[in-house]
């Protein structure tokens, strides 16, 4: 039942193309950058430039997820109120919202994995062909930083979903019975 509601959340996400593409692009960028700086943060600790950047990316992701959840709940208040009228509980609605947010993050993750393959291939080609410029640092992204970053991002998304739950509770089903514009 929850899986079905999540799947419907995914359907709703894909039909809101513009919002989906904007947020997916930002998540992709954040996951890519966090993965890029992950290894040096691991070696040099959080109290380094790379460490600060990773923290900034994670914090940005939290703010972004909160913003996404807030947009979803606020802009679709009437839809959620209607669903409550027809028998959805707060948990059912938060399942849809979490389906939308997690799907967007996972899409960003898959895009990053795809990008990393191409990035590594291009880098390796340039390196083997001796056309790497000396002043460009050699940075390759492994699978472990991406997986670790993804787990952190999903944790951050879950945190934002928990924070937005109160806002879902405040949507009263009675709103659905008010006239449009009332």
């Amino acid at each position, binding site marked *: 039942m929850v899986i079905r509601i999540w799947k419907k959340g995914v359907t*709703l996400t894909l*039909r809101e193309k513009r919002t989906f593409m904007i947020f997916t692009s930002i998540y992709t960028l954040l996951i890519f950058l966090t993965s890029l700086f992950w290894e040096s943060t691991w070696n040099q600790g959080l109290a380094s430039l790379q460490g600060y950047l990773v923290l900034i990316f994670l914090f940005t992701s939290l703010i972004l997820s909160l913003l996404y959840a807030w947009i979803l709940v606020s802009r679709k208040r009437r839809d959620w109120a209607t669903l409550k*009228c027809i028998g959805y*509980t707060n948990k*059912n609605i938060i399942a849809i919202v979490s389906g939308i947010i997690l799907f967007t993050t996972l899409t960003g993750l898959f895009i990053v994995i795809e990008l990393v393959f191409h990035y590594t291939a291009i880098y390796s080609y340039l390196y083997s062909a001796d056309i790497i410029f000396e002043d460009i640092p050699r940075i390759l992204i492994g699978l472990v930083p991406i997986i670790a970053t993804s787990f952190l991002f999903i944790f951050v998304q879950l945190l934002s979903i928990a924070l937005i739950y109160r806002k879902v509770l405040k949507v009263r089903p*009675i709103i659905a*019975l008010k006239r*449009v514009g009332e």
Partner: protein
Amino acid sequence: MPIDKDTMIEAIDVNKEYRRAGAIIHALNDVNLSIKSGEFVIIQGPTGCGKSTLLNVLSGLDLPDSGKIIFDGENIARAKEDRLARIRRMKVGFVFQDFNLINTLTAIENVESVLWPTVLRTSEIERRAITALRDVTLLDRKDHFPVQLSGGEKQKCGLARAIIHRPRVILADEPTGNLDPQSEKEIMDLLKKINNDSDTTIVVVTHREKLNSYANKIIKMQNGKVQSVK
């Protein structure tokens, strides 16, 4: 007070007031009424007489300040939100004046949405949605989005959504308020047909007296009170 087993909804000494611009408005004032299973009831009255508040309270969307609402044998006046949601999902169908369809879902998905949080199989949900859409003569539009439907078609879709889970009661708040006369007749005929075929209790809130011929009970309201029951 003994409750008749045929009684679907009963309001006992129901009061509801709210504040607007600092003033206290008595939306419902000692309302007592009884709706029997299988009845077609129209609640009528001028704007602001409390008819929509009454519908909200009868359906558990709003809680009365005092009194009891006995819905299918259960007092829902003090029920928790999750319990009320479950009662609505299992026993109540809603029809809205503004249709309230989800714009990013197709007609059939809008109808199916009622049953998504249930344990029913997806194939069974789809079968029921197709039956409901056929019943309201909208099957040929099942893959259309709400923006591609006319007002009458949107309301038919709303009606299919209200009947897919075979509710005991359908509550309709000005269901024809945004429709042309032809669509109004179609929707009211469909409600009457559902009432006759499946013995579903229908409660319609409207200010249009010309719809009275569909009802077998008319509750007139004035200033938050039941003025007459015919």
